[in-house]
């Protein structure tokens, strides 16, 4: 039920943004897919049995933990957090609810097309979209700063759709990282 309510909230927030292209990316209410996603922290099913560290791994950096995943990818001209990336955002939201002293910055990014400053604003909108998923789940607004790098920090250096898809993203960074 929570899942459905969230989809509705996000869809209405997206509509409120007023961007013309986002409509085609309004998430379809798929009620089955998200529940199949593993969202339990620290008990990953994709373990590769290697040497166990003597001390407890930092869940934020442990590659076996979903919290080590930090990026959310977006469609062209869209700031909709797609279903496939919701588990990652939700896991970080739960971590923030538990860890009252943790603070994050969400960094929005764009592909290179268009003007630098308008892209900076668009990246901000993507970062805000990630933040809203988290605040709906109970994280206080003041603990999430949203900033944008626009098109200035591409993850992929190419000039084609494959590179652009890597560059339309939001990154979650914890304070002190």
């Amino acid at each position, binding site marked *: 039920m929570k899942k459905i309510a969230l989809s509705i909230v996000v869809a209405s927030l997206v509509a*409120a*943004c*007023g*961007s*013309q292209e986002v409509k085609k990316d309004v998430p379809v209410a798929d009620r089955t897919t998200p529940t199949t996603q593993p969202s339990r922290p620290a008990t990953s099913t994709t373990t590769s049995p290697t040497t166990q560290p003597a001390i407890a791994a930092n869940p934020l950096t442990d590659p076996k933990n979903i919290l080590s995943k930090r990026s959310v990818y977006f469609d062209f001209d869209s700031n909709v957090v797609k279903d496939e990336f919701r588990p990652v955002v939700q896991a970080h939201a739960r971590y923030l609810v538990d860890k009252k002293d943790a603070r994050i*910055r969400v960094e929005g990014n764009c592909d*290179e*097309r*268009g*003007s*630098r*400053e*308008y892209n*900076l*604003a*668009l990246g*901000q*909108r993507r970062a*805000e979209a990630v933040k809203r998923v988290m605040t709906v789940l109970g994280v206080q607004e003041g603990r999430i*700063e*949203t*900033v*944008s*790098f*626009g098109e*200035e*920090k591409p993850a992929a250096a190419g*000039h084609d759709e494959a590179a652009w898809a890597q560059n339309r993203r939001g990154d979650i960074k914890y304070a002190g990282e």
Partner: protein
Amino acid sequence: MIRQLAACLLALAALGARAQLTIDITTSGGRQVPVAILPFAGESAQPQAVSPVVGADLARTGLFRLVNTVGVSPVPTEPSEVNFVDWQARASEALVIGKVEPQADGRVEVRFRLFDVQKQSQLASFSYVVAPAQLRATAHRIADVIYEKLTGEKGVFSTKITYVVKRGTRYELQVADADGANAQAVLASNEPIISPAWSPDGSRIAYVSFDQKKPIVVVQNLAQGTTRVVASFWGNNSAPAWSPDGTRLAVTLTKDDIAQIYAIPAAGGEPRRLTVTPAIDTEANFSPDGKWIAFTSDRGGSPQIYRMPAEGGPAQRLTFEGTYNVRPRFSPDGKSIAFVQRESGKFRIAVLEVDTGQVTVLTDGTLDDSPTYAPNGKMILYEAQVGGRGQLAAVSSDGRVRQRLVSSAGDVRDPAWGPLPTN
């Protein structure tokens, strides 16, 4: 509070690293005025010859054709020595002669004369006494005089440009002469630098720094090398634009909401919100008379160019064709706005006539961005992507002349053309 950023020290270290820009004319249209520029007597004994710089300045505009002066002997250096009939036979309409003479104090005197060949009359005559190191700058001043006499418009050969060079992970804000010479890094960083904007008097450059891992607005005093953070609020701080009197900046902040436009004192201080919308409002630019701010907003569903009173208030939409019109810059006379237009997936520089709404597309690139007017309004410098690299290019505001500023090193981007020198 003046803060010396660590980046400033880097800038000093980077002064040696120069990337020269050379300017090629790729297209020129219309009639070109034939001009003969003779070698200046005595210039070859100086560290910098004057007449070649004058000729290159004029030729680069695409408005002039340099008449061949090879074989002219003796080379006239005084009006009495000029054989106007000979120059009429060479189909030259204007003629420039001059000489460079060392002075007892180590300086040099540069004299030049400009003639109308048909009327056999003198149009201008000037003398400058300068240090030998100033000979290149003097050549630009001479070219400015000639350009103004022959076209009726101010020359911009003595102006400066700034732009960002990216090499690997290193970013430099460089300042160069308008012909690309004397490029110097005024700032270096391992984080991006974007949106440089000259103060109206040319003494300072505002830009967006990412040194604090987020965009903040910094103003740097060029002569002193000091920097001042003027906007570092919660969220993003970007898109600085100077008011024509130099006292205020319009900036885009996200501290209260989505990207919105605020006014802030140029020395820093409390921002005052100018736009209140649930949409993106950014890329402010003041009209030269200070009455208006043009900006980009997607309040209507797609990004379009609007204008509002400089103190905020009701906005009026200015662009209606297409779904992507961004990054407005007023022409120096305030009658036109250069901007970036997306058409069929390609991003081009276009010009809007404010009164009529007529739009003319000037460029034919794929990812053109960041148009900036020369202070005489005749050329628009912009960023183009060539072979996957950012390069600077320029187009005349009537679209007839095109130049490419060729750089050997890195990505060159985000240009801003400085004001006319104040003297």
